[in-house]
């Protein structure tokens, strides 16, 4: 037994005593109902059990092989941003009570967690400017897919009009989720100059009945869409408007809910979640009261205890898989509760003024960098629309070579945009509040030099 970690807790004498109590001689007899030919005859072929320090040195070694936003200055975005995470977020989210609780099925001993989830719903509701928000779905991509399904279910229509400026990964997941559900997806194109949704394309798609118009702002080029117009056009044709957003931008950008969006979804990573090589992140979905019965996932609400005192509990479970089974609004069971906690703590720390400043600083720095890069010979901004903190530039050299060159000098300079637009020589660059003026200037200098060397 000596080689087992301290979290195995039965001693040999305990096991004997228990087997006796159960009335069997051995573990083998205990499970003798398992057909003998199925029983594994040899030990699993796994590495020898590691002590904690061996584990640590193995994992530290693996981690050290990866480049990261610590080893390189990170100008990567694409829906995931290197915003600062205050230490308080980690401090709170690592508290064992939160970390090791399950879904609060027993509200009497989960009022703390229920308050967290309820406040998460309220705070995100304000950010999106919608009255109803759920307790999270897996990520931004599945939030899009679930939102789309909400629109289908609520409208009774099975056609979706979808902007092609949504993150490509999100679109792929949308397609996957809809593929077998008798849903027709019509993509609308974008204006190559402005980098925004092509309104003519939208208008023509709207000639046929549809469940919803779905768009994202800022979009996959970093460009802000005219959400107000998109929503109006959808509503004129009795379509729901489903709008994806970048939560941090909402510190200064008008909320989709304010423009009348019926469903607002987002990837929540920018609100206090580590980059973590892609996850866990968090999908957020908000909507109007009228659509609440179509929401996927958990909802927390006010109730009363038997003394009549206010209390919180999971509500509207009749939407969910454990009650409604195959007719549920979604299959989601485990969600991203701990990420919701992080986000709530993050937003509580930032508050009105903090989020505004994070958004403003990110925008200021991105606009500074873009303007400076534009001054470099051969570089031009790819799109004319307004951007928040992420922008595309066209470069006169092979983009992936440029990225590689800058990487060698300590920068993850941007995402190659070829997949978006078939352009080989386009870079998507994101800037957050954490990049200092010195860093930006240094980057501009190295960028310019690298360009020279490559051309």
């Amino acid at each position, binding site marked *: 037994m000596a080689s*087992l970690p301290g979290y*195995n*807790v039965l001693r040999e004498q*305990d096991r004997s005593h228990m*087997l006796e109590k159960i009335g069997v001689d051995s573990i083998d007899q205990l*499970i003798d109902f*398992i057909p003998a030919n*199925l029983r594994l005859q040899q*030990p699993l072929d*796994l*590495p*020898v059990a590691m002590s904690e320090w061996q584990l640590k040195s193995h*994992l530290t070694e*693996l981690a050290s092989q990866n480049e990261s936003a610590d080893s390189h200055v990170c100008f990567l975005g694409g829906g*995931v941003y290197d915003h600062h995470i*205050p230490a308080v977020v*980690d401090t709170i989210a690592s508290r064992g009570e939160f*970390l*090791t*609780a*399950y879904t*609060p099925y027993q509200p*009497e*001993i*989960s*009022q*703390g967690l*229920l*308050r967290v989830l309820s*406040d998460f719903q309220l*705070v995100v509701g*304000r*950010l999106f400017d919608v009255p109803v928000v759920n307790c999270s779905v897996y990520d*931004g991509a599945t939030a899009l897919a679930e939102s789309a399904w909400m629109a289908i279910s609520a409208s*009774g*229509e099975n056609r979706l009009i979808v902007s092609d400026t949504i993150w490509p990964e999100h679109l792929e997941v949308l397609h996957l989720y809809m593929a*077998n559900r008798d849903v027709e997806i019509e993509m609308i194109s974008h204006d190559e100059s402005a980098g925004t949704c092509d309104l003519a394309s939208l208008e023509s798609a709207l000639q046929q009945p549809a469940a919803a118009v779905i768009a994202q702002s800022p979009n996959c080029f970093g460009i802000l869409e005219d959400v107000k117009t998109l929503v109006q056009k959808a509503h004129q044709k009795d379509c*729901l408007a489903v709008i994806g957003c970048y939560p941090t931008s909402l510190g*200064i950008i*008008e909320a989709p809910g304010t423009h009348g969006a019926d469903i607002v979804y987002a990837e929540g990573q920018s609100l206090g979640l580590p980059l973590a*090589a892609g996850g*866990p992140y968090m999908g957020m979905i908000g909507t109007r009261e009228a659509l609440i019965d179509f929401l996927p996932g958990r909802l927390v609400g006010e109730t009363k*205890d038997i003394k009549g*005192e206010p209390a919180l509990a999971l509500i509207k479970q009749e939407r969910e898989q454990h009650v409604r089974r195959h*007719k549920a609004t*979604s*299959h*989601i*069971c485990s*969600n991203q509760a*701990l990420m919701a906690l992080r986000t709530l703590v993050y937003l509580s*720390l930032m508050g009105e*003024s*903090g989020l505004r400043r994070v958004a403003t600083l990110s925008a200021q*720095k991105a*606009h500074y960098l873009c303007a400076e890069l534009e001054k470099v010979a051969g570089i031009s901004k790819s799109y004319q629309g307004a951007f928040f903190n992420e922008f595309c530039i066209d470069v006169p050299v092979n983009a992936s070579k440029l990225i*590689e060159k800058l990487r060698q000098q300590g920068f*993850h300079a941007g*995402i190659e945009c070829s997949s978006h637009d078939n352009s080989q020589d386009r870079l998507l660059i994101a800037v957050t509040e954490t990049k*200092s003026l010195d860093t930006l200037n240094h980057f501009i200098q190295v960028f310019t030099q690298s360009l020279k060397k490559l051309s």
Partner: protein
Amino acid sequence: MNPGTTLKAARRVSVFDLSQPGLGGSGITDPDFDGEHIPDELSEFATRKNTGLPELSEVDVVRHFTRLSQDTFGVDLGPYPLGSCTMKYNPKRNDAMADLPGFARVHPAQPKDSMPGLWTLFHNLQEHLAEITGMDAFTLQPAAGAHGELTGLLTIRRHFESKKQNRSVILIPDSAHGTNPASAAMSGYICKIIPTTKEGTLDVEAMRSMLDGDVAALMMTNPSTLGLFDPNIEEIAKTLHDNGSLLYYDGANLNALMGLVRPGDMGFDVIHINTHKTLSTPHGGGGPGAGPCGVKAFLEPYLPIPVVTRNDHGEIEAQFDRPLSIGRVKSYFGHVSILIKAYCYILSNGAEGLRMVSENAVLNANYMQSSLSDLLPPVFQQRCMHECLLSGGDLDVDPFDFVKRLIDFGVHPPTLVGAGCVHFSDEYDAAMLIEPTETESLAVLDDMIAQFRKVAREVAVARYMIETAPHTTDVAKIITDEPAFLSMLEADKPCDSKSS
């Protein structure tokens, strides 16, 4: 409301109540940028006057959430025998590893060759999972069990598509977890329900009668959510395979099997694993988990992209160009930090350790069942696997009330229909599903048993204490309004609310 509120009142206070406009912001400042002026180009869009976010000082945030955490019960505070959820101890060492900057600070859009350590970890983990389950290939992408189900079902779909077969039905036992039928529906399948026999096993005859060319697969978990191992599993597998159908394994109950039996050896073709159950990753108050999906070799080409595997030069890489793949089930590579913890768990235990985990999980459940059988007879008269289904029908009190009283004695209630997320048919509606897990020691089990017995004795002498329990919590008993709830449930609303 006042930030100087006492601890107990914290749960009644929302962050808005604590807001003092003008505070907050946590020192967001940069000496070289003013942080106020909106870039001109943006001004048309940046018209938001206020967000309505609360404004708290840092100390108020820390206090509020520290207090709230104290009003939340987790495994770190006591036993949590919530059946089907495998609330085992979550080793702290694993959390620390996932936080290493070389993992936590990696941006997913970095050049693919900039994270070789991550790919090695993925590759190792996939191999270990394959070994543990007897499958051939794994994808680590799914976000949770339900998401693993979706992935697996879409893989099955793609398999039949490639064979030009049109199979539209998924068979599901009546005791299946709600996610099974829900995932099947999301994959465009029709669900057909198989009854459970009196012995608690799948009704093989009923299944046989439902088999035809339309059946794509049977989804089951073994041991089932009734805590029983289905000894007919090989026959079930053979019957299905003879019908050209596949067998899906819901791995939520894998904690009973490691090192003892492997789903792959039983004949399952596709499986998912709940890392947040079997592999000890923290539940986090409801998530995130991870739901790796494993398949037999013939299904491997259909796994979602990216696929982490060795290329022709023997290097491990993430491959996106997989023509037969079902596509992408979520952004990027899965719940990386959760997967790291699962990997650490496997490495800490090794083969012997994992077998001990499962042996002890089964032992603990049977010990609970034996020790409580006079009060709470097993629903099925046989030994259980890692959880036991006990009948509260003989109690002279509502089992829902009974379990709430356990809270007063430091024990989290077991799973009942409606409290926890299992589903039993009406016959077992007084049943309790108790899953102690292997990380509760004999001393803890004996204490839990003593608490169950104490409450049972209380029925005769002070049943009001039970009916009004819990008494030690800050809020009193909360009951969901069941009649309203059920009526709402029955009146299956027409989907007419197309909104304007």
